[in-house]
């Protein structure tokens, strides 16, 4: 039974009470976007303390940080720290789980704010991105490098400000080659290697640099965001708010539909639109179909890295059945494009239902066989147990999401913590393990696969009658809200504010891998370079993110470029280290 949103009681009031008790008059404003979403405005200087208090004392996890150019609205910039607050560790009965957004206003003549990163390490990438896109400087932030904008982008040009540039403006390149400065590694016995702007052949949308001592990885750094296209600005300009769903589909090639649902639900919450129950079930089915094909891809890669290539091909063969399911339900193998604001634009009739149920049955049987074969591969346990450990304390500091986090003992799954669509109406289980290693994460994905199969069957069996689309709702300018989804890799969260012209005023979409990358360094440390590809694959980042890896021996002060395929081969065969060959 769907309860109208206005009737649901507010969740999270105790966190606001705790904030008021600690900070008193510093809580300048409190506004609720949904029964479990509240935004509190605080003075700029209190920002780090308030965020740190919610993070460590009230069981908060940093979901996203969005800056917004609100000068046309109220004369200031604003920054929003979005936390999923789940109850303090001492609370014997942590039942209230809510999104608490900490907002602060920033004066336009002094665009800077006190960095939260020194207190909450998870904020590091977000604050770098705010500086890139808005020119608002995080004071006290240890990392001064660009994150998102390309090296050849001119200084002082901030794309997401409302008055700097049209979305189509393309400045002349400022340089022809890359000049990203990778970090220097220091430590006892390790000589500092001055690494200036080296001429790296980066034919790939992600560039890794591993710092090694012999074969052991000491540290790692990566340059990503080669795929930055400027989507957030596009959503504010050419597209209207109903068309942005098609853009959201194309954020990611594997979890596009999850982004689509996150965006659609953020707008629907902002406008208080009641999505019909049947549409919510259909969205659930499609989200789980996406999870199926994504996890099968990752399991296939896991096979590949432990040398079980036939398994790799077989996983991909059965994955085609999940693709067929998607094609049957939506008309396309990828880019489902089925959401509109207010519901979905395709129904599930008898033919689709029958085919999907049949394919599910086949998938369940075939994947069970393949998984058991993978686990019986001779060296699988040796290759993956205790490799790439994500220690629980590191996880708590950096807020990773998805199977990466659930492998370290935290049973955090947004489908249960902040239920959406039909997840609170259909029975299913969260899968988590406490091995902290690559093996745990792989096993979690295998088990989640079977949970998804059951979920889809249950949804199809109990799908409610009624419409699939709500039309004729009222548009409210400047309404804002959060939309969130547990994508195959973890939590996707979108923050949207509507404009006064049927377009988005601000859209901050945060993909799940964004929260997982910062902690990858710590997962790589202490392992050998032959395990690096396996560890990277275990966080299931966007596929083919790297073609080439630079390995820097900090002792010998030598940098070697190793083709990624060579790293892979070494990972699989464990003989003939690429470092030895090139010296």
């Amino acid at each position: 039974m769907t309860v109208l949103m206005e009737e649901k009681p507010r969740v999270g009031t105790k966190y606001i009470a705790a904030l008021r008790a600690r900070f008193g008059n510093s809580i300048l404003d409190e506004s609720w976007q949904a029964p479990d979403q509240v935004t509190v405005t605080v003075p700029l200087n209190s920002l780090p303390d308030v965020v740190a208090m919610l993070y460590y004392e009230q069981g908060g996890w940093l979901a996203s940080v969005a800056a917004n150019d609100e000068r046309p609205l109220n004369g200031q910039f604003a920054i929003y720290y979005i936390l999923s607050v789940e109850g303090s560790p001492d609370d014997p009965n942590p039942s209230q789980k809510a999104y608490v957004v900490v907002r602060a206003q920033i004066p336009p003549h002094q665009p800077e704010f006190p960095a939260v990163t020194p207190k909450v390490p998870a904020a590091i990438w977000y604050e770098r991105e705010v500086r890139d896109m808005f020119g608002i400087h995080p004071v006290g932030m240890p990392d001064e490098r660009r994150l998102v904008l390309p090296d050849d982008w001119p200084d002082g040009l901030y794309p997401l400000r409302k008055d700097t540039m049209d979305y189509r403006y393309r400045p002349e390149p400022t340089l022809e080659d890359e000049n990203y400065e990778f970090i220097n590694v220091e430590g006892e016995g390790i000589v500092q290697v001055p690494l200036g702007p080296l001429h790296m052949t980066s034919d790939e949308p992600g560039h890794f640099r591993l710092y090694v001592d012999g074969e052991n990885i000491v540290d790692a750094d990566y340059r990503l965001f080669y795929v930055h296209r400027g989507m957030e600005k596009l959503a504010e300009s050419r597209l209207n708010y109903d068309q942005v769903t098609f853009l959201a589909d194309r954020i990611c090639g594997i979890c596009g539909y999850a982004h689509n649902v996150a965006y659609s639900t953020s707008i629907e919450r902002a406008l208080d639109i009641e999505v019909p129950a049947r549409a919510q079930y259909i969205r659930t089915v499609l989200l789980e179909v996406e999870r199926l094909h994504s996890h099968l891809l990752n399991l296939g890669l896991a096979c590949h890295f432990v040398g079980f290539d036939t398994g790799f091909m077989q996983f991909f063969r059965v994955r085609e059945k999940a693709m067929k399911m998607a094609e049957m339900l939506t008309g396309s193998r990828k880019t489902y494009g089925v959401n509109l604001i207010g519901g979905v634009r395709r129904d599930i009739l008898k033919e689709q239902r029958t085919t999907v149920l049949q394919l599910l049955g086949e998938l369940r049987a075939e994947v069970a066989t393949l998984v058991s074969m993978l686990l019986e591969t001779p060296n699988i346990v040796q290759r993956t147990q205790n490799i790439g450990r994500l220690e629980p304390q590191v996880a708590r500091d950096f807020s990773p999401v998805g199977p990466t986090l659930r492998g370290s003992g935290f049973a955090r799954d947004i489908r249960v913590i902040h239920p959406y669509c039909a997840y609170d109406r259909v029975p299913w289980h969260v899968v988590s393990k406490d091995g902290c290693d690559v093996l745990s994460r792989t096993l979690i994905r295998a088990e989640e696969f079977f949970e998804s199969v059951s979920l889809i069957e249950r949804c199809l069996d109990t799908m409610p009658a009624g419409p699939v689309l709500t039309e004729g709702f009222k548009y409210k300018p400047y309404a804002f809200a959060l939309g969130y989804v547990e994508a195959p890799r973890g939590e996707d969260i979108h923050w949207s504010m509507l404009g006064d012209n049927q377009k988005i005023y601000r859209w901050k979409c945060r993909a799940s891998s964004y929260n997982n990358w910062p902690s990858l360094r710590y997962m790589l440390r202490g392992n050998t370079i032959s395990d690096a590809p396996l560890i990277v694959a275990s966080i299931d980042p966007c596929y083919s993110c790297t073609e080439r890896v630079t390995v820097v021996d900090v002792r010998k002060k030598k940098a070697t470029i190793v083709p990624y395929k060579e790293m892979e081969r070494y990972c699989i065969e464990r003989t003939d280290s690429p470092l030895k060959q090139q010296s």
Partner: protein
Amino acid sequence: MFRDSVSTQAVIANSKYAIAPDPLAPQLKAALLKEIHRSVYVYRVDCGGCNGCEIEIFAALTPLFDVERFGIKVVSSPRHADILVYTGSMTRSMRVPALRAYHAAPDPKVCVAYGACGCSGGIFHDLYCVWGGADKFIPIDVYIPGCPPTPPATIYGFAIGLGLLGQKLKTQHHVQGEDEHALPRHPQIPYALRVQVERESRRMAGYLYGKRIADTFLTILEQNPNQVQENVRAYLDKLDDPRLSEIMTRLVTLSADDQGEA
């Protein structure tokens, strides 16, 4: 059309990686295609796509589609490539790497623009951080549209590029004929009822199936307005789909209400 601080042409011309046009290129490419026959090395350059295209190319390598049957192998270095496949909309960051890959691949070579992003920039075509398709900087020989192109479409595209199949699409230009008219469907149905039926059907079944269901219902209604209930029941019994029955029953009620009022 839109304000650039500098035109794309200037960027191409002033770059130290600019590609000089080669008048011999077509001949050399034809010779290449004749030579390589059934063994083709493909190098993939991801110029800032969402990775959907990457995964579909990957899927084309897997057992169900298996492009390796045709001797197509994906290699890990442009220096061994006969064919360069450009995916992604050519972001600013990937301009120089894309050109480097082009210069690294030995001549002659065939360049493929893959996906809507590769062909034109796709939905991102005019964004600030995107140059708008691979052919802005690279001379492209084959365009494979799709978002993403399915594995069979990929195989078809490679077959075109290798000269094994001829392309089907041809540019079209239609000019309105003298006696060309387009009239509304279901002219016998009152307009207000038609709109109501189409709206309700769309609300219940979405746009695609909603249109078809409404169309079917209105056809049945037009054929015999007095026997709608029976004819619809016969149609639904044949198809035996509970959801379809639910939707059509509502349409029958709508039309009965309307006739009741009339």
